[in-house]
């Protein structure tokens, strides 16, 4: 990653705007008087239908300083759009990101100018959540988002052939003796935990995470999504609203299923079934959703003494404030369908030019999902590889990233190849993903599957009490079916030092030569439907780059310099 010769930092030099310490809380080393006003901000407009999606707009009043890290978007979603609908209480949010799955795009504007916009918000959040610890996901995010990230170690308490609790070591000869389970996909008796009265595995979610029906709206799970969790701009900055033009936040919502659409015709939705293997679920209808009431923002305004406010205003009038922040751009690509003859398999390569000339790029994430809407994709969308639903996954939908057979990749940035050998080993790819933040904390079997080797993914629960691998029957655990191979995100860290955050020069300035991603997978035309893997793969690139918000007497502007 050499400095590009045609675009260098020197081309973009300008005087840094100095932020007052009130707007950089980490730097504040003096006592100030401040009063905190916590407000509920209702939207100025809101409309939503399950079949069409919707938009909600908020206008933030120009007062005080917005404590952006604590701003939260709150809403309740219900099953059914009219009285009497949704009475089966059979819906919950997608399991990895919960209510964030409702958000398709969120935009922050000031004076009509876009400050920050995050597309594919739910997918981006899926990636970022995996950098949080398992404890944080389970104990904090699951509560805020109504997601289901809990983890338990399943240890068979009553091995096959035993009528009674026969001792734990007797399960040693069973594949499923010890496995990892998501307790909101699989409930069963285990070591030190015998909640079931009979030897059955059930698959329901917690009652408090299930969407209420239309008649019971207002009593269901409410999501409180920190804007900082979905918009990088809000992570650290404190916005002096008192000196800015009108700030607007626009939230575009994903649509839900139409009321008459059967589950087996749905390929993407923000909601999932409570029990994915319930009898007859595939033909069920009535999965339409709406908001119980308009969403609202919970905001903290900081009101400083008048002399402190005057300092902020004087700073704006006399110069400029610069907020360095991370913006994320989304672009897409396709790894094409395999066209080889029947009975063959082979590599399918694709090159993806991502551009970004002149930008200071920090990280790039690549999400991979099979195109289940194409003819071939539709034909193989319910395939399982070693039991894993990597095409159409009714508990994750497309808010996942599928592991693919024979995957290898490399990057070319500023005309230099990043890795001298293509990355073709799962553990190494995972390590490069770790580089982007502290650790990419997904479960074993979710990332490196050794080309869907059954032994590897067996670490995720997939047996009944007999301990024998079973990827079909509803009486067995289903954690592996819905989570195996579904968190395989490719990552590249172009920051020099993660600790330096958004400091200028910490990222990599891109030359006129576009960033290139070279990607190869192995696809197969087996001629047998259940093992086909010919379809195209949709690649979604999230490119994080540094931008600066500059506030001066002329207004607000955003720049890449």
């Amino acid at each position: 990653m050499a400095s590009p010769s045609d675009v260098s930092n020197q081309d973009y030099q300008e005087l840094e705007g100095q932020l007052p310490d009130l707007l950089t809380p980490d730097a504040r080393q003096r006592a100030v008087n401040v009063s905190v006003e916590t407000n509920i901000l209702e939207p100025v407009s809101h409309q939503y239908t399950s079949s069409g999606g919707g938009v909600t707009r908020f206008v933030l009043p120009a007062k005080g300083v917005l404590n952006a890290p604590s701003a939260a978007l709150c809403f309740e979603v219900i099953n059914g759009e009219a009285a009497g609908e949704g009475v089966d209480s059979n819906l919950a949010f997608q399991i990895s990101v919960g209510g964030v799955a409702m958000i398709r795009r969120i935009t922050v504007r000031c004076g009509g100018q876009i400050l920050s916009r995050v597309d594919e918000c739910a997918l981006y959040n899926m990636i970022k959540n995996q950098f949080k610890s398992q404890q944080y996901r389970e104990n904090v995010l699951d509560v805020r988002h109504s997601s289901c990230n809990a983890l338990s170690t399943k240890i068979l308490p009553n091995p096959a052939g035993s009528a009674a609790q026969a001792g734990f070591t007797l399960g040693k000869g069973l594949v499923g003796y010890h496995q990892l389970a998501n307790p909101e996909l699989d409930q069963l008796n285990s070591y030190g935990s015998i909640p079931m009265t009979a030897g059955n595995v059930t698959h329901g979610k917690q009652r408090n995470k299930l969407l209420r029906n239309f008649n019971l709206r207002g009593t269901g799970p409410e999501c409180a999504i920190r804007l900082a969790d979905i918009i990088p701009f809000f992570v650290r900055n404190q916005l002096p609203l008192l000196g800015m033009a009108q700030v607007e936040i626009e939230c575009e919502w994903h649509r839900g299923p139409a009321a008459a659409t059967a589950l087996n015709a749905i390929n993407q939705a923000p909601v999932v079934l409570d029990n994915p293997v319930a009898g007859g679920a595939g033909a069920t209808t009535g999965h339409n959703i709406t908001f119980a009431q308009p969403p609202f923002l919970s905001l903290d305004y900081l009101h400083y003494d008048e002399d402190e406010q005057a300092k902020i205003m004087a700073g704006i009038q006399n110069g400029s404030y610069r907020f360095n922040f991370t913006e994320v751009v989304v672009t897409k690509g396709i790894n094409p369908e395999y066209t080889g003859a029947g009975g063959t398999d082979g590599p399918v390569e694709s090159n993806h030019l991502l551009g970004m000339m002149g930008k200071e790029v920090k990280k790039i994430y690549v999400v991979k999902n099979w195109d289940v809407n194409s003819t071939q994709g539709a034909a193989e969308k319910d395939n399982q590889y070693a039991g894993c639903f990597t095409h159409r996954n009714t508990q994750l939908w497309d808010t996942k990233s599928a592991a693919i057979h024979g995957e290898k990749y490399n990057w070319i940035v500023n005309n230099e190849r990043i890795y001298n050998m293509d990355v073709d080993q799962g553990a190494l790819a995972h390590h490069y993903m770790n580089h982007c933040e502290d650790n990419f904390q997904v479960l074993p079997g979710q990332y490196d599957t050794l080309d869907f080797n059954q032994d590897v993914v067996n670490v995720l629960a997939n047996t009944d009490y007999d301990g024998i691998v079973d990827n079909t029957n509803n009486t067995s655990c289903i954690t592996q079916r819905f989570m195996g191979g579904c968190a395989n995100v490719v990552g590249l860290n172009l920051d020099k030092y993660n600790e330096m955050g958004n400091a200028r020069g910490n990222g990599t300035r891109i030359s006129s030569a576009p960033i290139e991603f070279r990607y190869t997978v192995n696809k197969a035309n087996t001629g047998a439907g259940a093992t086909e893997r010919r379809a195209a793969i949709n690649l979604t690139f999230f490119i994080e780059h540094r931008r600066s918000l500059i506030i001066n007497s002329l207004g607000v502007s955003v720049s890449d310099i």
Partner: protein
Amino acid sequence: MPPPGMNLSQVRKQYVQLNPVNAVSNGQFSSKSGIPLIKFDISASQAPMFLQGDELRINGRITTNTSAGAPLTNTADNFVDNFCGRFANCIDTVTISSKRLNQVIERVNNYWRIVPSVVSSIHGNEDINTVLAHEGDHFETNFLGRHSLVAQDAGAKGKSFSSKLYCGVLNSGQMMDLSVNGLGGLVIEILLKPDVSVVFGDDASTNNVTYFLSNLTLTCPLYHMDSGAAPAQQAFNFNSLSTVFQTINSSTSVVALTPGLKQVSSIFCNFMNTAEIGNQSRNSARLGNIGEVRALRYSINGALYPLSYRLLTNEEDNNLTTTHHTYRARTMIDRNYLEAVNINRFSETGRTCLAWNKWNAGVVNRSQTQNNNGLEQGTAAGIGILYDSFGTGEDLSQTVFSFELEASGDDLDGTAAKSQGVYMCFLNKNQIVMSAQGISVVR
């Protein structure tokens, strides 16, 4: 973090991937079917070039077979220690040398005994099941690790790993200057263990299970800087891991030695029955149960230090069984052990596997040879003492360090031999001094 005084615009980051310099034709490394020494060579540069040691990874694939070359069965008794992980279980010694004057910077012996203590003391189950499972194939329990241990692809190769090296010099938090004015490049040598002490279990022993490593690479980010972009590095501090093996044979045992180290931050020890060392039926990386401890004291030159009192337990009073079971009640011993491994005060301990009710290490009532075959609930026992989390450490270069472990009656280990192997690890502050005349390591 970047070296102080550095200008970001003058830094260039490079991801390097290196193959071993001593690769053989079949690309395999092992004690049986390849060569047992893996050697990586990171060359020097003229301009300043810094290595971020904690991001250095050894990558590759581990394949385990029976002596006849057949894959292992996923229901048989074949295991690797869950805390040690698949990769660290294969390693006997790691040596890191500067290419400048061929100076050894750090040599970590008994690597496979250190890693289980470190992993179980500073990580909880959630970390192990998420992060470490992808790195060195560490798992919460032996049975969870068995799934990937037996996995092989169509080419009869095992699952990949990408593991850090648990060496002090690579995890100091400082970047190392590898230029000709600094360390002058690095040589990393990894000596592998014999088959008999890697994959264990009754079936592993019956089938003489072997292993080999392949597709090995070393990856790390390097930071190239323009000359003058950063001040020349003149000194570099790190904690080295020095190990000593001892045995204890009676219920009141004293281990005494002069470590010959000047700045010891902490000392920790773990135990296992000596009769199990080299026995493929038994877990050679097991953090054994020690026994029914009555008291433990640490001394320097015969005087109680740094604790001026003995650590007493009431395990004997709580023992509910008659045959070699320990009712575990050694909170203060655990506390000091965690401080020693973390090199930090107990209040700073955030995560650990030393729970009371978890399969891997939290069983209260356990036998003396608990889980030596891999089938039972595990243990993560150890002892340790922290001398100094802030300053220059304790000078043990001329003095005698000792600890006395008093166990009840005949319950040192529950077997007739009563002999326990003690793996002692000294964490010692070191300084590398670099000058135009060369480099030296001050220990």
